[in-house]
């Protein structure tokens, strides 16, 4: 018995401190995450953007070389890094253009192009946007990779808080039925009930979203590992070759990739010399067409001088894990109803954080080791201002 009390004390201590350290950051993440669930809708509402021409289904797509030429002609940056087929806007192509191949890709200009005509639509500066500021706060607090990894650490503490929370849930519920809410009792009792109830009912969702968030903070590192692992392997015979003087056609590179992997569609192209390819290849990244497989990528490397396919492999497990973790974090894979559910569950997570913080401030002793009888006694000595 005393051993179990000792172990309970330990878990309570873990729950208290893991929560306390991460709570303010988790609150920030929950609040900035709310608008991010609807970032497309918010951008559409707040910012004018050129729409692609509406065309009947089956209209052939624009020539990609022409589209890229149109993009470059309209912006000061001249070196294309990536061309992206946005899953949310199938009529639009996104070109990411930098000042040079070595320039920081996160500072690239995004050019929107009409997918059917190849025409330049616009190249908005998104860095002042509300959604951009929320995204930066949410991912790295404007502190780059260290900020990202720090938030990842807070996320790990949050996961520890969740697990220890489940452990300390059981002693506090020994004498209470599931879902007990003592509505006529003082606030501290009511908020304890709310904290327990919301915590235990949403625990799996909160854990999955928390943990996939942690995985996403490691994205930069995962890409680096892939770059020096599989990508280096796939392009090893090119290591000593000079970069091509003239690039072969982008359109034919994509055609070659689509022919080699007919059951998938292009997700994005990494131009030669960017982090997702070698200096000698177009990296054509293909995706599947179910909600799950559309998140998984399979690169086809096409020689940027001869236009010949040189290799194509499925991504290693650590990249696939990262890719699958993204929809599970964003909630963007089941239409508007799923986004609304994500919103409600996010708000409930805020409720857990706020009630938890309140309970800690009200009593320095851990609530979990406090028996129900003790709690009743403790709350009855204070003046009771129940509703």
């Amino acid at each position, binding site marked *: 018995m005393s051993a179990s009390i000792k172990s309970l004390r330990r878990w309570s201590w873990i729950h208290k401190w893991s929560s306390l350290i991460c709570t303010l950051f988790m609150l920030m993440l929950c609040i900035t995450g709310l608008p991010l669930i609807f970032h497309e809708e918010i951008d559409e509402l707040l910012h004018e953007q050129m729409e692609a021409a509406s065309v009947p289904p089956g209209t052939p797509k624009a020539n990609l070389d022409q589209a890229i030429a149109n993009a470059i002609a309209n912006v000061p940056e001249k070196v294309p890094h990536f061309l992206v087929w946005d899953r949310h806007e199938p009529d639009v192509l996104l070109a990411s253009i930098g000042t040079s191949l070595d320039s920081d890709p996160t500072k690239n200009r995004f050019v929107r192009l009409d997918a059917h005509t190849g025409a330049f639509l616009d190249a908005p500066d998104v860095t002042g946007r509300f959604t951009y500021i929320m995204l930066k706060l949410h991912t790295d607090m404007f502190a780059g990779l260290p900020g990202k990894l720090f938030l990842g650490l807070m996320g790990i503490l949050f996961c520890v808080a969740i697990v220890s929370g*489940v452990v300390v849930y059981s002693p506090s519920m020994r004498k209470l039925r*599931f879902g007990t*809410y003592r509505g006529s009792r003082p606030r501290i009792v009511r908020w304890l009930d709310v904290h327990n109830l919301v915590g235990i*009912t949403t625990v*799996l969702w909160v854990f*999955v979203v928390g943990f996939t968030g942690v995985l996403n903070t490691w994205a930069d590192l995962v890409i680096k590992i892939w770059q020096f692992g599989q990508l280096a392997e796939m392009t090893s015979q090119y290591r000593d070759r000079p970069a091509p003087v003239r690039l072969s056609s982008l359109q034919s590179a994509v055609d070659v990739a689509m022919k080699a992997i007919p059951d998938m569609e292009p997700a994005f192209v990494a131009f030669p010399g960017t982090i997702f390819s070698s200096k000698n290849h177009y990296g054509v990244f293909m995706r599947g067409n*179910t909600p799950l497989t559309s998140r998984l990528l399979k690169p086809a490397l096409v020689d940027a001088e001869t236009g010949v396919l040189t290799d194509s492999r499925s991504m290693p497990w650590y990249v696939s894990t990262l890719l699958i973790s993204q929809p599970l974090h964003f909630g963007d894979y089941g239409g508007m109803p*799923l986004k609304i*559910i994500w919103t409600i*569950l996010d708000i409930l997570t805020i409720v857990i954080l706020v009630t938890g913080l309140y309970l800690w401030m009200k009593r320095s002793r851990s609530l979990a080791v406090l028996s129900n009888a003790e709690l009743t006694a403790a709350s009855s000595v204070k003046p009771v201002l129940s509703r």
Partner: protein
Amino acid sequence: MTSRRQTLGQIFLIPAILAVVTLGGLVFALVEDGVWDALSWVALSAPIVLYVGCIARGRRPRTSL
């Protein structure tokens, strides 16, 4: 309030069912669009509905117990 102390099994029965339902909800929408999406919405609503239900029940003036 129950008169006896509950076992771990009793305490975690409903939470465990909820966790399985939630996990199903998270996975269903990944499989396919359409019906699978709808299944996912229903499953992921379960914890929300249960929470609202419990609070509503607890707020009612006490008639029994």
